[in-house]
């Protein structure tokens, strides 16, 4: 299905670098809408409080306030929240979703207004069935409102700087005594191989003991096959320590 074939949208900038959007699927978006519906109900109930007070003075005005508040909040909640909070309603914020421009440009208010005004068609015949069908069939997971507005709903990545403490940069590394071998290792190991070794170290405590042994033996044997350090530097090292030294050479600060 097109929606499954492309869950990431990559954009290439004129500077030649790529950045990616991870597209949000129909289930997550539906859940975010359900949360927003609950928020709208809460807001409407909050409006009822002053209108009940107003009923004492003028029942007609109170009812008019309720009618107009229902219309304004049901239509305007989405567009005003997404405008004020850079593409997020409360439901989207809770599920780490965001509306973005499909070309990576800043959102404009007409886009947010358009995608929210078109909910009335997306919601046909009920519960966003038409919008859901369009979303599933769309290669960019866009409902009709997103298509008309040129927007996407994406998942927000949890962006943090990598924790390199596990690499043990401060610990003694016998491989550093052999600078020429260390340099050859850095040139030979590919980024993918380095990442596998780093991830194995970072997640080693989550592995079962037997699996941990097998994994680090395979990694250590692989790196031994690329560059052979002298016996003096490798004596007494377990496979896991061997891999840690290798990763320390690859990622940690050079002297």
């Amino acid at each position, binding site marked *: 299905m097109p929606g499954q074939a492309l869950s990431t949208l990559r*954009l290439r*900038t*004129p*500077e*030649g*670098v*790529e*950045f*990616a*959007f991870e597209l949000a699927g129909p289930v997550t978006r539906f859940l975010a809408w359900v949360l927003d519906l609950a928020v709208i109900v809460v807001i409407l109930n909050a409006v009822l409080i002053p209108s009940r007070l107003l009923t004492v003075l003028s*029942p*007609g*005005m109170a*009812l*008019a*306030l309720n*009618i*107009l508040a*229902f*219309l304004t909040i049901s*239509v305007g909640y989405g567009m005003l929240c997404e405008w004020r909070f*850079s593409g997020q309603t409360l439901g989207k914020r809770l599920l780490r979703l965001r509306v973005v421009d*499909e070309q*990576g*440009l*800043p959102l*404009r*208010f*007409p*886009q947010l*207004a*358009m995608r929210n*005004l*078109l909910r*009335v*068609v997306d919601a046909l015949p009920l519960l966003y069935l038409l919008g859901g069908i369009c979303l599933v069939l769309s290669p960019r997971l866009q409902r009709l409102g997103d*298509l*008309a*507005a*040129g927007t996407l709903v994406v998942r927000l*990545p949890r*962006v*943090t*700087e*990598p924790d*390199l403490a596990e690499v043990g*940069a401060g610990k003694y590394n016998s491989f550093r005594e052999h600078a020429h071998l260390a340099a050859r290792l*850095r*040139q030979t*190991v590919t*980024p*993918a191989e*380095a*990442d596998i070794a*780093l991830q194995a170290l970072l997640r080693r405590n989550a592995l079962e003991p037997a699996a941990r042994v097998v994994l680090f033996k395979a990694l250590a044997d692989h790196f031994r096959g690329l560059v052979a350090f002298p016996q003096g530097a490798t004596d007494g090292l377990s496979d896991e320590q061997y891999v840690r030294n290798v990763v320390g050479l*690859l*990622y*940690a*600060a*050079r002297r």
Partner: protein
Amino acid sequence: MIVDLQRFIAEERPCWQELEALLARLDADLACRLSLTEVRRLHYLYQRTSADLARVATFSAEPEMRRYLEALVGRTYGHVHAGAESRSGFRLSLWLTRTFPVTFRRHMRAFLVSLAITMAGVLFGGGALALDPSAKPVLMPFPHLQSDPRERVAREEQDSEDRLAGVQTTFAAQLMANNIRVSIFAMAAGMTCGIGTVAVLFGNGVLLGAVCADYVQAGETAFLAGWLLPHGAVEIPAILLAGQAGLVLARALLGWGDRRRLRQRLRHSASDVVTLTGGVVLMLIWAGTVEAFLSQYHEPVVPYWAKVLLGVAELVALAFYLARAGAAVTPVSGRSDPTSE
């Protein structure tokens, strides 16, 4: 070669933090204007961060670092490559005196099509009722329209009590809410290739034609004019404009006479469709108020000629506004618009 991540982060982090602070300033205040120095600094930081991302992507497969830099580059890309329009504030006076009427005129053909569809409905509704009066419940499926016009006129003209006493505000709100919903649907249905929009316009025309035929046949033309014109002079054009917006959207979807790609066409039409919809909402707020507080009052309380005169004045003023407002302003130069009509 694997990039020395710790040294890399130590060297580049100050730039990333400076860029994040600048982006936070831009995101927090849409009207924020950077000095030339700041703009140059932003561009430098963007290019440097882009280069950092390229290094990480090429020489290190560290996924968290890559995601972090992609997010930073992505946010900055939008600010660097967006046009000035994205950061200009909204001014209601400018929108009312220029943007809305100019947008209306730019899509005049869609308005004329909307008018033609409605008129077709009016002719159909009026003709159908004239030929077959027993079709009244089908053509006008609203209980308050089923009564005999003569009986209704006699009842309301002789009624000494104000039927709407204390409920005009509620009635006005109901009218506004209902009409705004119908108009939004007429616009949004443009995404059904215009089929829904045409259905709404034609259906409204049928209802209007049937009501007019019913009252004219009953000899209550004066009552009809006094009843419909005060609010209809604005409400009916509002529905036509909603249909116009829907047809603009439909045309962008279908791409007739436009060689641009679908996404470009829809992107280009979004602002105009939203502008027209905004104007429709304002018109319907006015029409709902007039309908609740004036249209429902008849002779001898309010003379028909006064109501007709008001309706005609509203229609003339609206026509003049849509035809002339903003006309003295030179259109934005250098922008070719194959969809302009």
